[in-house]
């Protein structure tokens, strides 16, 4: 009898099953090992080192000296940190939702395209492949107040062309504008979600409601909420890490009038211009904690608005 431990014909003996399970687990670990080693060496160790270096005075050459929380105290008194934190938060608040809405609109349009769909997807993804520095320089030339095509067109249409890069009240919006250009990844994620909506659900929705707007709000959007969550989290993280466009446009001082001074620029200049690695590590630690808290907050609220297919409520 099976419950006495006798072998049942056709079934694997428990001991052999356990053995096979262990071997499988070992193989799994072995296969995952390269990734685990890379994670430890390139992510975990640097992360822990960052926390440690943040409590030292370290200028790359020479040995670090322990200063405890002095770098964090200095951060509190540094006006550049506060200015850049405010700018980065404002940038995130403006760029993330606008980017999500535009990417969603683009994905909805691409989802309806039947001819040349691959071509359009490639076209919208291409800007993402362009180096950020080149993209920023191209935008600077396009938005030049004298001879830039954007202002020439606005002028010809009778609009008062703004000074995109020199007016402190406009420059941050210019950075936001730049962030909207490479929408490819977000759009593809939304498109993947849209194409995964079951055909029968769509047909049932069409029968229930002839209005496209209603179908979008009550059927489509709820079904792609996991993609919205993904894009939202990634968007928040990357918006706080905006660097290349900011430093190309505003330099290390965030011109004009520190309006483009982002948190990552202040962090970078502390590390590699002022060689104050301990301070930069403290800034990185604070950024890590803030982004982590924001991400946790989003995940916490996600329980009430993200719908996973097959999930019961």
């Amino acid at each position, binding site marked *: 009898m099976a419950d006495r431990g006798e072998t049942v014909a056709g079934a694997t003996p428990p001991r052999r099953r356990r053995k096979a399970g262990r071997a499988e687990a070992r193989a799994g670990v072995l296969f995952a090992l390269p990734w685990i080693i890379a994670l430890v060496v390139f992510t975990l160790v640097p992360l822990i080192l960052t926390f440690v270096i943040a409590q030292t005075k370290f200028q790359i050459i020479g040995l670090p000296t322990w200063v405890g929380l002095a770098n964090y105290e200095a951060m509190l008194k540094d006006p550049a940190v506060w200015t850049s934190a405010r700018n980065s938060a404002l940038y995130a608040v403006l760029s993330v939702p606008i980017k999500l809405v535009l990417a969603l609109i683009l994905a909805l349009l691409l989802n309806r395209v039947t001819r040349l769909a691959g071509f359009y997807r490639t076209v919208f993804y291409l800007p993402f492949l362009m180096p950020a520095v080149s993209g920023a320089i191209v935008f600077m030339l396009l938005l030049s107040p004298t001879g830039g095509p954007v202002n020439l067109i606005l002028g010809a249409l009778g609009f008062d062309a703004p000074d995109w890069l020199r007016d402190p009240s406009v420059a941050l919006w210019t950075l936001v504008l730049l962030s909207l250009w490479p929408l490819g990844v977000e759009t593809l994620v939304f498109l993947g979600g849209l194409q995964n909506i079951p055909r029968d659900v769509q047909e049932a929705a069409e029968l229930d409601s002839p209005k496209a707007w209603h179908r979008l709000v009550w059927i489509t959007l709820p079904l792609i909420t996991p993609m919205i969550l993904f894009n939202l989290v990634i968007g928040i993280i990357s918006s706080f890490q905006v660097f290349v466009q900011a430093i190309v446009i505003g330099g290390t001082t965030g011109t004009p009038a520190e309006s483009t001074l982002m948190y990552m620029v202040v962090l970078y200049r502390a590390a590699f211009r*002022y*060689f104050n690695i301990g301070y930069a590590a403290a800034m990185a630690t604070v950024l890590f904690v803030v982004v982590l808290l924001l991400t946790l907050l989003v995940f916490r609220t996600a329980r009430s608005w993200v719908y996973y297919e097959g999930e019961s409520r």
Partner: protein
Amino acid sequence: MAFQVSIPGGSVSRRGFLRGTAATAGALMLPGRLMAQDLGPLVEWLPGGSPLFCEIHTGLLAGFAERGGFSSSETVCGLGQNTEFNQSLIGAIASGNPPDISMLWDSPVSLGAQGAFMPLDEMMKGSTIPLETWPGGLLASCQFRGVTYGLPVTAGIYTMWFNQDMFEAKGIPTDRASFPKTWDEMRKLSKEFTVWDGDYLQVAGFVPPRAVEPMAVWSALNGGKLYDAANLKYMLDSEQNIEMFNYFLDWLNEEYKGDVNLIDRSGNFTDGYPNTTTGMGPAFRESRLAGMQSGSWLMGDFYSDPAPNFQRWDLAAHPVGPSGSATAAGIWPNWFVIPVGSKNPQAAFDYLAYLSVEGVVKWYEQIPDVPTNSQVKAKPPASLVERRGQEFADSASAFLQEQAAIVTPMWDSPVQGFATDQMTRAMEKIYTKAATPAEALAEAQSACQTELERVLAG
């Protein structure tokens, strides 16, 4: 655990020590004859520059290495300017694999004070390039607390430039000696050229200075200084500096409608190069700006794209401010250092001694970076002779070397990059009238002095 070995003239890391021990052991096993011939490669890093710049340095180092018994030499060019280059260099030093020699387009003081570069004083004693062969103002930018961390082999010299054709058209004397001697004279002369079309600046005489790096020169011209290296003290909000910016603002209000944005929207009136962010051409080369402050390096690029629409220009000494008493010049550094961990420090120094006096002659013939060692007898750049004739080229070259002798101390702070950013911020506030000169400079002064004390505290 940290492991450092002190040797005369510097220290080596554990890695360097082990490498040195291994090399010595290996060398002992080699026949003496072979050992004397092969000293390994001599490696030099350059921050940037044109292909010609790289070619000249590659040739100079290769020639020296061959004569000195090195198996090979390597000149690594174009590693990025200033911050990016410093980042690479400091990374190489920290990881124990620096070049033997490096050029810096920055102050050696910031990194030297942290122990990144070898002190050169001992090696300079009894060499062909002792301390007294260098202009004091230039050497000051390589020294910190009496220790020399670099050599000012050639310099880009800041002087005044003026368009002789524009001067002549107005009946103004075009010789160097007649150039305005004071700011008041310069401002008065400027008005004769400046023409507005509504809010568009068609032509300007001179415009109030706005570049940050040469601001130390303008301060010196008004009897002040931005930083007092001897006393380790910033002096940004001194009376002379506040007066200087009030003077420039007054000038801006009187001649340029009080708005720097109107100037910037009308063209590039700040230097002799095209503006890379707006795509606007240089007003000076377009005969829309009668005079400006610029560096000697412009002589090498002046006739390249965009070509100037006039032929005759000249250089002149800086005019003196209301509280100043003597003219002064400024520099952009082309300094050389020997990083700590260099595998061939003595050979690196010998190369710098050769470069400073002999190699620099070949360098200057092709690129107008002014040799600064007093023993150099260099011919003017060939391109300048070709364009303006031997007499003018000789005169301009001699003038630049005179100016090198009166360079005001600058680039001499251990927190140079930080101070440059603070001054950029302060000047932006002043010129956009977001703060008065006294307020903006006081804020920058406080930040710079605090940062200086923090760095020095270790």
